[in-house]
């Protein structure tokens, strides 16, 4: 797993309530309780702080937040470093 994916998963775990259950790379986030507008804003803000970068505004779309993998891909396309 890349460091970027780890950062995405750790951030999601910190933001979502425990009732959201376990997460992996392909968890469908919109099905999970607590994944609302504030969760999305919180996840994005924390990831941007942690990675020291900003997601391309044109990528901040519903489809980007379907799963942890799609979030990591959008960050990568916005210039995040990817280390194994």
């Amino acid at each position, binding site marked *: 797993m890349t460091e970027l994916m780890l950062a995405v998963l750790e951030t999601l775990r910190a933001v979502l309530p425990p009732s959201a259950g376990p997460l992996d790379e392909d968890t469908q986030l919109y099905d999970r309780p607590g994944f*609302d507008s504030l969760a*999305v804003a919180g996840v994005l803000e924390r990831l941007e702080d942690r990675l020291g970068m900003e997601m391309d505004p044109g990528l901040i779309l519903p489809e980007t937040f379907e799963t942890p993998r799609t979030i990591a891909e959008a960050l990568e396309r916005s210039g995040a470093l990817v280390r194994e």
Partner: protein
Amino acid sequence: MQIQEGFFRSAARTPDALAFSFEGRQVTYAQAAERVERLAGSLADQLPSGARVAINASKSIDAIIAMLACLRAGLTYVPIDPAAPIRRRRFIVDDCGARALILDARTQRDWDAEEDLPASLELVICPEPRQRPGITALTADALAAAGRPVRRIVGDQNLAYILYTSGSTGEPKGVMITHRNAAAFVDWAAAAFGLGPGDRVAVHAPLHFDLPVLDVYASLATGATVCPVGERTVLFPEALLRFLRDERITVIYAVPSALTALVNRSTLTAGGLPDLRLVLYAGEEFHPQPLARLMERLPDAAVYNLYGPIETNVVTCYPVEAADLQRPRIPVGRPVASARILLLDGDRVVDRPGEEGEICVHGPSVSPGYLNRPDRTAASRFRVEHDGTIYEGYRTGDYGRWDEQGVLHFLGRRDALVKTRGFRVELGEIEATLLNHPAVAEAAVIATPHPEYTNLLSAFVVPHAGVPVDESTLLDWCRETLPAYMVPAELSIREEMPHTSTGKIARRELAAQPA
């Protein structure tokens, strides 16, 4: 006059015009009116006039049609946040004694997982009816099929809807709104903003807010098209931008946090939304800086600041001009047609420019009070004699002053009610939630100003001696009870709390030390 009547007048005048457009589905006024009448017919057969109907559904055409059907049947609807913790939703159903509950597929799953339903319920309308003892469950289609078109006229002092808002005692409180209250604002808004056929009005805020009252009832009364913004679209500034452009929205009414996100976090360029003629905002202050950026990118749109708490709906309005963007704060404006505003300093009416006073509202839009909370209602009232006239109504708890031109300026709050991301929050409700945790001895929640969200919430907690507890446990506790916007952004555990000489928690001191 009842607030849904304008919709039926439009349906008679322009039956083939579009009443609703949502995610590819278009519904004409004639189609919508027929559906509303049929649903109302069945509801009126099953429920007495004035009964409460809880609507726990995501924003959609069907949810708005359900609201109209309740009103047509002489019932009072109670919209409940579909994303709120189920405990809070149950509290609201119990508190208002709802006889019926209207659900969509998503909220039905949440309620199906509950062992029993609140005792007041007798009718559940949902996509996949499930039998429970003592409950009639059926689909909206079955309900509509059984209904004969009906209208039940109720007086304008009857309740149209009840909106729940944060309460300082640890429980939300229901603000009762009569037809007369709502109509006072809706009639003014429809005329003031020149809404009419050809307008496509976005419904951006959730239905349990008071902003959609304008979007829905003022639009439908004037023959405009109501365009709900899908809940997923609301989450993403770029998706909102595409929605506004592709749906050719002409009017949007939203909280500043959402409009700030649109300008800061989307690819909106100057002139990129040529159809948008009117931007209305309310709910919190708009910082002049992001507001200036928004106005640069929407050079052809008129922008208005609307002010008023849920208890009175909008009572002042201010057209924002470029010159206002140099001010530290945008004024809240002049009183709108039906409202009389008095500034009170104790029992004295303050009316000289520059003098400060509490903003108090007299007029037809003032709510009769909080459901089942006569003490809270009484505490929120004022009565004063001024120039030989008795004025009475609602004390907002906000401070303001008049300027030389008779324009009202907002100065701040007198209590622990704050705004965050456009939501209104009683800090005491969050503190009460923390204190309900068995490990917590003392709790304080502080709001710190934030450029994008108005305020960020930080919690400080002192646990009972020797009881181990950590930050994430307490934040999870909050998440399971409170709506997301009330969960503190930060929480810190302290050995002791700073106190003032009178023994109160020293909030200023806490505010100076971040969590």
